[in-house]
C-alpha cells in the first residue's frame, strides 16, 4: 500500500465526514459559536484574576496568556484530527467499533477520519490570545522573532503529546469501557492546570504534570526557554523526541488494548 493510497483515502474519508456533519448546519454553527464564547469567557476569568493580583510568582499576564494560547492551539489541533479518539467511549458502549474493525484500514485512521471536528472558534481565540501576548512580549523586548517558529514547533509537538495522552486514556476503555471520569482527570483537569505556570503548584503536583501525565511539556517547559531564555534551545528541540516517545508508547498500548476489545452483545 503506497502512501498515496493512504493520503487519498484519508482525504476521501475526511470529505465524507465533513459532508455528513454539514447535514446538520445549524447544529454545526451553533456549536462553533458557543465554543468560541466559552473559550473567551475562560480566558477572561484568568485575565481578571491576574489583573487583580498582577504577576503570579514572577509570570506576567502576557506570559500566562502565552501558556494559555499554546495549550489551546495544541488541544485544538489534537481534537480536530482525533475527535473520536477522545470519544472512543461511544464506540465501546455501542459496539460501533465492530464496523471499523471489519475494514482494511488501521483502526486509528478509521477512527480519526470518522468525525473530523472543525473548531474555528478555538482556533481564532487561541490565535488572538497568542498574537496579543507575543506582541506584548516583543514590544517590551523580552522575546524576538525567533520565538515565532519555536512557538509553531511547540504547538505541533504539544498536539502530539496531548494526542498520546488522549490515546492512552482512551485505551484504558478497552478494559473498563466507561472512561469519562478518567478523561476528566488526565485530559481536562491536567490541561486546565498547565494553563498556569507550573511553578504555582506544590512539587508533587508538578512532578505528576511532568512525569505521570506529561502535559507540562506542551507549553510550560518550552516556554521556559522561548519566553525567558532559561536552560537553552535544547529544551525546545528535546521535546520532539520526547513527544515521539510518548506517541510510540501510546500506540503500543493502543495496539495491545485492541486485542482486549470486548464488543457488545447483539
Amino acid at each position, binding site marked *: 500500500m503506497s502512501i498515496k*493510497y493512504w493520503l*487519498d*483515502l484519508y482525504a*476521501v*474519508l475526511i470529505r*465524507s465526514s465533513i*459532508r*455528513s*456533519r454539514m*447535514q446538520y448546519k445549524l447544529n454545526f454553527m451553533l456549536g462553533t459559536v458557543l465554543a468560541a464564547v466559552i473559550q473567551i469567557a475562560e480566558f477572561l476569568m484568568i485575565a481578571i484574576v491576574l489583573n487583580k493580583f498582577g504577576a503570579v510568582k514572577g509570570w506576567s499576564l502576557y506570559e500566562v496568556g502565552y501558556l494559555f494560547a499554546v495549550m489551546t492551539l495544541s488541544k485544538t489541533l489534537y481534537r480536530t484530527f482525533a475527535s473520536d479518539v477522545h470519544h472512543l467511549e461511544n464506540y465501546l458502549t455501542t*459496539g*460501533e*467499533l*465492530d*464496523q471499523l*474493525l*471489519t*475494514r*482494511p*484500514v*488501521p483502526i486509528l485512521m478509521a477512527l480519526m477520519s470518522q468525525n473530523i471536528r472543525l473548531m474555528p472558534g478555538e482556533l481564532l481565540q487561541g490565535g488572538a490570545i497568542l498574537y496579543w501576548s507575543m506582541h506584548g512580549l516583543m514590544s517590551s523586548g523580552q522575546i524576538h522573532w525567533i520565538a515565532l517558529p519555536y512557538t509553531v514547533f511547540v504547538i505541533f509537538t504539544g498536539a502530539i503529546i496531548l494526542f498520546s495522552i488522549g490515546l492512552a486514556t482512551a485505551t*484504558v476503555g478497552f*478494559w*473498563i469501557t*466507561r*472512561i*469519562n*471520569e*478518567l478523561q476528566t*482527570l488526565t485530559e481536562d483537569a491536567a490541561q486546565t492546570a498547565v494553563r498556569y505556570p507550573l511553578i504555582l503548584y506544590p512539587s508533587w503536583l508538578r512532578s505528576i504534570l511532568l512525569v505521570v501525565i506529561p502535559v507540562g511539556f506542551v507549553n510550560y517547559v518550552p516556554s521556559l526557554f522561548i519566553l525567558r531564555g532559561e536552560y537553552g534551545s535544547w529544551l525546545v528541540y528535546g521535546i520532539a523526541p520526547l513527544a515521539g516517545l510518548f506517541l510510540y508508547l501510546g500506540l503500543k498500548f493502543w495496539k495491545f488494548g*485492541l*486485542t*482486549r*476489545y*470486548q*464488543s457488545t*452483545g*447483539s
Partner: protein
Amino acid sequence: MKGDIKEMSHAQPMIEVSGLNKQFRTPVVKEGRFAGLRTLFTREYRMKEAVKDISFTIHKGDFVGYIGPNGAGKSTTIKMLTGILHPSSGEVKINGVNPHQQRRQVAKRLGVVFGQRSQLWWDLPVKDSYDILAHMYKVTAQDKEKRLKELGELLVLKEFWLTPVRKLSLGQRMRADIAASMLHDPDVLFLDEPTIGLDVTAKRSIRGFLKKLNSEYGKTILLTTHDMDDIEQLCERVMVINHGELSYEGSIENLRDRIGLPTLIRVTFNGAYQLPVPDGLVLPIEVALDADHTFRIVEANNREVHIEANRQQVKAMDILRLISGWGEVADIHMEEPDFEDVIHRVY
C-alpha cells in the same frame, strides 16, 4: 500453474477454526461516587465463557448456517472469525491467513454484514458509501460500475440510490448493506442475522440473492439466523452452538434424523373403525407394530385417528398396512416434523 490451483480449489478449506475459546472478563462495576475510577482499580471480575473449544472447517463454496439460541456464542464466534475480537485461545485461519495477526489483509477478502447495524455512512446518500468503499478496497472505477450494475439489478438499489442511509427502510438498508459487502468481490461472506426484522417479501428477495451468490458466484457463506426458513432454504450444512459449545455439525437431514422427532400421521376413516386397544383407555397410547417397534395413537375421534411415529425406527408402509385393518381408510395425511421444532429440541 495458476489455472491448476483454481481447478483444485473446490475442496480448499476457506475457514479453519481450531480449539477456539473466548472468555470475557468484566470488572464488577462499582456504584456511587467516582464509580468509574473505582472500577478501574477493582480486583473483582466476572468471568464468562462465551465460546468453548470450537473447531470446524468450511470449504470454498460452502453455504453454512450457524444457529443457536440467544447468547449461545454465535455473534462472538463470528466476531472472532472476522478479526473483531481476539480469542482467548485457539486459532482462526481465513484462506490460510490469521485475522488476528493480519487483520487488514483478511478484511480485504471478506464481506461482513451485521443485520443489527449498518456498515454504511449513516448521513450520506447510499451511492456515496459505495464510492468511499470502492476507494477503501481499491476497486477500480470499471469494476465498481460493473458490480453496482449487477448488484443494483438483483437488489433493486436504484429506488433509493440518492437517499441518505438513515432514511432507508429496514429492507432497503439490508439490501444496501449486502451490496456494500459485495462491492470488493470478497471470497467469504459473513452474515450475522441478515433477515432480522424483515417482512416476508424482503426476506425472500434477500434469500434469493444469497442463494445466487453461493451457487452462481461460488461465494463461501456463513450465516447466523434465528429464522429456520433461512437455514432450510439456503444452507447445505448447519452448525448448532449452545452454551458456547458446538452441539451439532452436519447436514439438515441428519439433524432431523438425529433428533428423531415423530412424524404425524392423520388417518381419516370411511365410517366406523376399530382401534386395537381396549375401550376406555386414555390416549395417547403405545401400540406395538411388531416385536421391537411401537408407535403412538395420540388422538381419536369419530372419523379421524392421529398417530405419531418415528420414521427412523418404523416404516410408514408397515403402519399403513396395520391401519388398513382397523377400518376403511378414506384419506391419509402425513406431516414431517417442523424444522423449528427440530431446532427447539437441539437447544
